[in-house]
């Protein structure tokens, strides 16, 4: 029998939301970086130009990815994992990986700088989704153990960069994927208990992490040292008030906020657009997540369901970690705000995630459309 059903159009609402976030990102990262760019490069458009270029590349990637059948990814999970491991190891090799302030996060390819951990996140999510969407043929222990080993390896490699933010992001997303896939709660609690000593070591072993937690609890304890950035961020919110100082009119971004165009861009948004802006951005992320959940619920198979949810989680968990740090609700850790922060890798990987989500949305029942026999015959 010839199948006369064809996949439908992608979810338009999700696309609009993502496009809006990326647009806001271009505007805000320009506003946040202009003064700095002028100081360093003598060209206030320096970062804007690069970001617009990355936006075009990312948009192209999104449009391409939403056309690729998501079921293909299930075939290549091992390859993607292997590639991820290689990239993560390469970053750590001195001379190949570059970074700033004692870190090593980027790989340089000609004029481009790639942050592999942004793409590793995607590979890990797809891998986990494949494992947990498959029917449980093995015991729970095995289904826990092997992914845990893989995850731990990647986790450690990311921590070695060090990129605590991405590692934590990955951890939360993984736990949520396991949870949603229907993994027994007992095992998950057990896993949590086992990992407590590991976290204890991770935090106490590295002195600055503990300092950051202290400064999170009381930023004014060391107001010119560790608490400085958080206080500058609070000041931005306070200055922003209800509707903000107006685009481009913020002053906190000038030499006061750390990384105003990347990790602390939410503070710039807070100052320049006020409560109206910050709540709108948070709601936009929630909207994206809601669309993702909707796509997950309507997806035709288990892999699609879990993948849609995993990718949505990837976006919203990262967004809330970033916004949590900027609002002083979480200890300081460097992680970009998806779609909005300046940075090519972050934008590209977020857009790819959105592209996959859009692709999954094309296979939901409601989206399918009947085509005439002629059209099918003609195409085949």
């Amino acid at each position: 029998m010839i199948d006369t059903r064809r996949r439908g159009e992608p979810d338009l609402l999700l696309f609009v939301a993502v496009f809006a976030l990326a647009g806001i990102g271009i505007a805000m990262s320009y506003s946040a970086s202009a003064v700095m760019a002028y100081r360093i490069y003598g060209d206030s458009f320096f970062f804007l130009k690069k970001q617009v270029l990355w936006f075009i590349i990312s948009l192209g990637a999104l449009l391409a990815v939403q056309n690729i059948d998501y079921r293909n990814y299930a075939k290549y999970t091992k390859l993607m994992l292997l590639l991820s491991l290689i990239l993560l190891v390469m970053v750590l090799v001195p001379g190949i990986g570059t970074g700033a302030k004692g870190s090593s996060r980027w790989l340089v390819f000609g004029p481009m700088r790639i942050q592999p951990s942004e793409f590793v996140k995607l590979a890990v999510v797809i891998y986990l989704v494949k494992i947990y969407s498959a029917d449980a043929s093995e015991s729970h222990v095995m289904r826990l153990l092997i992914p845990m080993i893989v995850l731990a390896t990647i986790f450690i490699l990311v921590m070695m960069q060090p990129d605590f933010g991405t590692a934590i992001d990955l951890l939360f997303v993984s736990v949520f994927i396991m949870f949603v896939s229907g993994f027994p709660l007992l095992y998950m609690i057990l896993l949590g208990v086992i990992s407590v000593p590991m976290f204890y070591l991770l935090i106490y072993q590295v002195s600055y992490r503990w300092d950051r937690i202290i400064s999170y609890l009381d930023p004014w304890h060391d107001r010119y040292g560790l608490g400085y950035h958080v206080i500058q961020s609070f000041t931005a919110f306070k200055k922003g008030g209800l509707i903000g100082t107006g685009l481009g009119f913020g002053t906190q971004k000038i030499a006061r906020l750390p990384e105003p165009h990347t990790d602390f861009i939410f503070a710039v948004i807070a100052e320049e657009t006020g409560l109206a802006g910050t709540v709108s951005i948070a709601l936009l992320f929630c909207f994206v997540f809601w669309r993702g959940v909707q796509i997950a619920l309507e997806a035709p198979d288990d892999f699609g369901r879990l993948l849609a949810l995993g990718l949505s989680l990837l976006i919203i968990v990262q967004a809330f970690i970033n916004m949590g740090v900027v609002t002083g609700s979480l200890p300081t850790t460097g992680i970009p705000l998806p779609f909005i922060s300046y940075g090519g890798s972050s934008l590209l990987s977020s857009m790819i995630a959105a592209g996959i989500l859009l692709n999954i949305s094309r296979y939901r029942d409601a989206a399918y459309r009947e085509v005439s026999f002629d059209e099918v015959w003609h195409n085949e």
Partner: protein
Amino acid sequence: MNKTLFRRRIYVTGLIFSVIMFFFTLRLFDLHFSDKIKLPETRPLDTGRGIITDRGGYILAMSIEQESLYANPEEIDDPDSAAVQLSQVTGIPVSAIKEKLLKKTKFVWIRRKLDDSMAESVRSLKLKGLHFLREYRRVYPYRELAANVLGFVGMDNKGLEGMEYRYNNLLSGRDEVVTDDISRKVYSKKNLRLTIDRYIQHVAEHELDSAMKTHGATQGAVIIMEVGTGRILAVAKRPGYDPNWYFRYDGRRISNFSIVDAFEPGSTLKLFSMASLLEYRPDALGRSYYCDGKVEVNGVVIKCLHKHGTLDIFGVIRESCNSGVIQSVKSLEKDEMYSTLKKFGFGEITGIELPGETGGILRPVSKWSGLSKYSISIGHEISVTSVQMAAAVGAIANGGVYVYPSIIESVERPDGTVIKGFYPRIKGRVMKYEHARTVTQMMRDVVKSGTGRRGESVYYEIAGKTGTSQKFIMAEGAYSDRNVSSFVGFAPWINPRICMVVVIDDPEDRVTGGASAAPLFARITDRVLPYMGAGSRSGHAGTVKSTSRLVYRSSGVMPDLRGMTVGQVSIVLRALEDTAGVKYYIKGSGRVYGQRPGPGSVVTKNGTILVYMR
């Protein structure tokens, strides 16, 4: 995967994020509006201090950016080697650096305001934990010039002396906060333009230096005031100091003698006794007095320098005869004398814009003894400052109108807009015009043929009065044989341009004001008046004709172009081109510092004028 379990858990996940979003929104409200979050008070940005210039715009004090080196000892791994390396570059002892590097802090100054080359060599050490901060350093390009007026600032750019101290808020902009073009709040610094002229100031200091050397004096001061406006053109004091290195000097060098130190004026005050006499007892003009070398009042004998014999009142002043003055003021009431001196500003501050001014001592009449009137009439039992004296003499030169002295030409914003311009502060008439002319005639006689003969100049006709007073030593309660020699006066005696007070404190050779201060007065006059374009008397080589900056269309005389900008110069020269057919060449850029022919000289028809700028 169990579909119902999946759905249930998806809803739980959604719920978790709804709760997170709820609390996050609360947090946002809290951050945007709550007072619970303590906002650090924002301090406006410091952009350095304004400059201080002379009246021609030449910079006397300015701030330059320099780098200050500090360390964060927590970031330094090896304090020992760091200290050794730093010591080699900066020259600070190793132990001192090490002590700083071992402190338990995040911030410690190593050295502030380094030279650029030193900063560069420190940077090339590539040591961890060393950082630079941009700071402003105050620089006084003319070093000692007008140092006693300018004062200086401390390490934190706070004015500690002089104008820097008095106008600290204005210069540093602490009086006003503005928003700059990248919407930062900044202190709005102001520039200060003084009435001081760097050339006149230089002449005063230079000539004072050589006079001090000749007479071996411990201290000397010159103050020059523009007649009619009260502009202080120069305040010189020796020994001086270099404000760039102010910390190397003691307070005595740094203080401004002309403003803060009062001294017994001696004979120079006789001028004001005469002013009082003319005002209240004009008949004294016709009288004559006999001097036998001493005079007795209230049982006290006051000596005179010589037996002067019979003198009229002009002769009394010409010869500075104590006996004559005392006899002449016998008929004068104490109150009359007191009110005249008060009118001339003695006993109270002039209000000149310099810190630490004293008003000298002029006791009220109720506290005068029987002798006081006579003592004061010859300049004892009264103390005055140079600036008081200059202003008082200025009133005589000005035909009897007293103008308060002033040293601020304008207060300007960095872009040149004038916030507050100079305006003469006129007290009003303090003596009749004809009396002022009479006193001027007396002063002219002093220089022409009296005690001030050595103050006579070939080029200019000077009017003045000498003064010599014994120094009263407080500790001993008696007058010593050390003296203060002074000369006050103005020039030219008709249409005066400047009035000047010269004080030589404690000359080693114990000479009188006529011998030490008067020649100094003349030398300064000879150099300053041509510069100002004041016409000299004829009959000698290089006669200078009177010129004015504004009257440049007057035929045949070269105007004074110095200090002018290209725009100003070309207006003047184009006018000359039209009237005299001269050609002109301008060399360099900036402001005019030289011209050929010089100011006041004759412009030849179809000649060439050279103007040098820098």
